């Protein structure tokens, strides 16, 4: 019998599969999600997702719910949700508590018989990879005919890659990762200005996960603007994962919004390396483009998920990475990224927006360029 290679224990807290399911339901344009579980479960993300227009409610299971079951509460909340929000699409998401006691989400749906589609996601947070939450949500969306088989397979392939990216150089790469604020933005921006002024040739790459691109793009925009201002615009090649023809509805919409704004603010995109949900594989496309066209460039600014860009073709360049994960600093340094900057709390600021949001690093660079 083949024994699975025992996966090493990882001690630092990591993203939750339940939360991953919630974000997926948002990308599927779900109007209201019912979390079947205790009132505080996923509170922070539930609240944030409301900024994106999706309502999240809870069945508020308590001690008595754990003991006697939560079916009646789920029925009650489902009925109330239909009445109060008049949703066109509903999600029901499990939690650790409700899944352990064996709650059947489908029973409540059968009882209430809503006349709009309901995506039932039987998920808890006990999966090693949080992408499992996305897969379960998509399976359910596929079963209710909301996405096509082709889109499901595409997403599944991307999620597998995303998991691999995290295992190789990301949050799942070590038993314990120390959180780290990264290098001082002031110093890193100073070095970047120096290179620009010296007329060095640079790559300016956006490879961001979904809506986080609303802020990461600001950094690439600041780099492009600064180069333009210093008269070295042509030295910079811009690439971004902003293909608006792929992905779930929200991701396409956001790619279009960011692309239009960049264009309108004077930034030309030389290469599109994929869609907003293709961050685990878009780095490979970028890597190929680099090896074919820009192997001898001096530096690269990579925002979003810099660790998804294979190091081979950029290892001789001076690398500037901008991430939003304090636990991503050490792995990026280990990979050979010289400068690593953290945009702390970036994600919450990119919810509920449809325009580029100013970043600290972008603001620092612009401010310093004034005196350059």
């Amino acid at each position, binding site marked *: *019998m*083949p*024994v699975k290679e025992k996966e090493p224990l990882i001690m630092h807290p990591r993203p939750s599969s339940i939360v991953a399911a919630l974000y997926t339901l948002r990308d599927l344009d779900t109007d209201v999600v019912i979390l079947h579980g205790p009132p505080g479960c996923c509170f922070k993300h539930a609240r944030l997702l409301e900024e994106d227009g999706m309502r999240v409610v809870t069945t508020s299971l308590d001690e008595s719910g754990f003991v006697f079951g939560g079916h009646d509460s789920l029925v009650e909340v489902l009925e109330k949700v239909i009445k109060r929000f008049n949703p066109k699409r509903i999600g029901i998401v499990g939690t650790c508590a409700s899944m352990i006691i*064996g*709650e059947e989400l489908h029973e409540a749906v059968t009882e209430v018989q809503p006349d709009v589609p309901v995506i039932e996601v039987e998920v808890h947070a006990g999966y090693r990879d949080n992408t499992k939450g996305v897969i379960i949500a998509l399976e359910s969306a596929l079963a209710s005919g909301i996405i096509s088989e082709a889109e499901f397979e595409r997403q599944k392939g991307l999620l597998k890659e995303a998991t691999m990216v995290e295992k190789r150089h990301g949050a799942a790469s070590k038993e314990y990762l120390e959180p780290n604020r990264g290098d001082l933005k002031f110093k890193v921006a100073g070095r970047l200005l120096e290179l620009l002024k010296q007329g060095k040739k640079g790559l300016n790459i956006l490879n961001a996960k979904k809506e986080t691109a609303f802020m990461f793009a600001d950094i690439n925009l600041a780099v492009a603007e600064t180069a333009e201002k210093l008269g070295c615009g042509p030295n910079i090649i811009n690439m971004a994962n902003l293909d608006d023809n792929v992905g779930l509805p929200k991701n396409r919409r956001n790619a279009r919004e960011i692309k239009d704004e960049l264009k309108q603010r004077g930034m030309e995109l030389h290469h599109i390396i994929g869609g907003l949900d293709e961050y685990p594989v878009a780095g490979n496309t970028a890597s190929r483009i680099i090896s074919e066209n820009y192997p001898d460039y001096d530096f690269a600014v990579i925002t979003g998920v810099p660790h998804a860009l294979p190091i081979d073709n950029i290892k001789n360049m001076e690398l500037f990475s901008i991430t939003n994960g304090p636990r991503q600093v050490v792995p990026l340094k280990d990979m050979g990224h010289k400068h690593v900057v953290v945009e702390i709390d970036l994600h919450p600021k990119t919810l509920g927006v449809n325009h580029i949001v100013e970043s600290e690093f972008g603001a620092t660079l612009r401010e310093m360029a004034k005196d350059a």
Partner: protein
Amino acid sequence: MPKQIAIYGKGGIGKSSTASNVAAACADEGHRVTIIGCDPKSDSSITLLRGRRIPTIMDLMRQGEDIKEEDIVFSGYKGVKCVEIGGPEPGIGCAGRGIIVAISLLKKISKAIEDTDLVIYDVPGDIVCGGFVAPVKKGLVNEAYVLTSGEYMPLYAANNICKGLSRLEMTLNGVICNSRGAPNEENIVSEFAKEIGSRLLAFIPKDVLVQTCEREGYSVIEKASDSAIAGVYRKLARSIMARSEGKIPMPLDDKRLRELTRI
């Protein structure tokens, strides 16, 4: 779609003996049979496997094995497919969650519960929590049977099970009397069955042969195939395989139940 049955009854009343003998009898008649042991004690299939204990799904999951069908589905007497779910040590963890996880794994990696004529879920006597009704709630059981003797406590348990079934809107397809030698037992159980809206499917007399065969690791169907008791199990197996109408049971109140056992 195969016939998917669960046999319920008070702990120790003889569910596993009945399940394995019915499985063996059905296999004798050429039916493809799968038996799923849902009790953490994992002893449902032992008499179909000549006393051999098979690894349980939970054991393998605990060890972090990459589980394949052949690791958990074992061929027993006349090709009966045997699966044991197993569970944690008594008093540790959550056996109910174990059943949920094991059933979904089994569905994913094996056709044993689809590609067959009869699936028997041998469930523990006490449905202590949500996990233990997972096979019913997940639509994997379409017929339920209650096993009881004519004594008060087993009948009380049987009646309670009927309450559970009616709450789940699950039909009952028959009552089986596993005799403990109580006076007037067949009449009592037959009357109980009638009053809850069902029927007495079989009266299994107390026979030491069942225990003797089990101790050696056999069903009576295999080890004492010409015995009278083997004949009783064969008849029961035929009634189960015959098309039967189930009805949602109407449980009795405790007063009536006490009266019944005084007949």
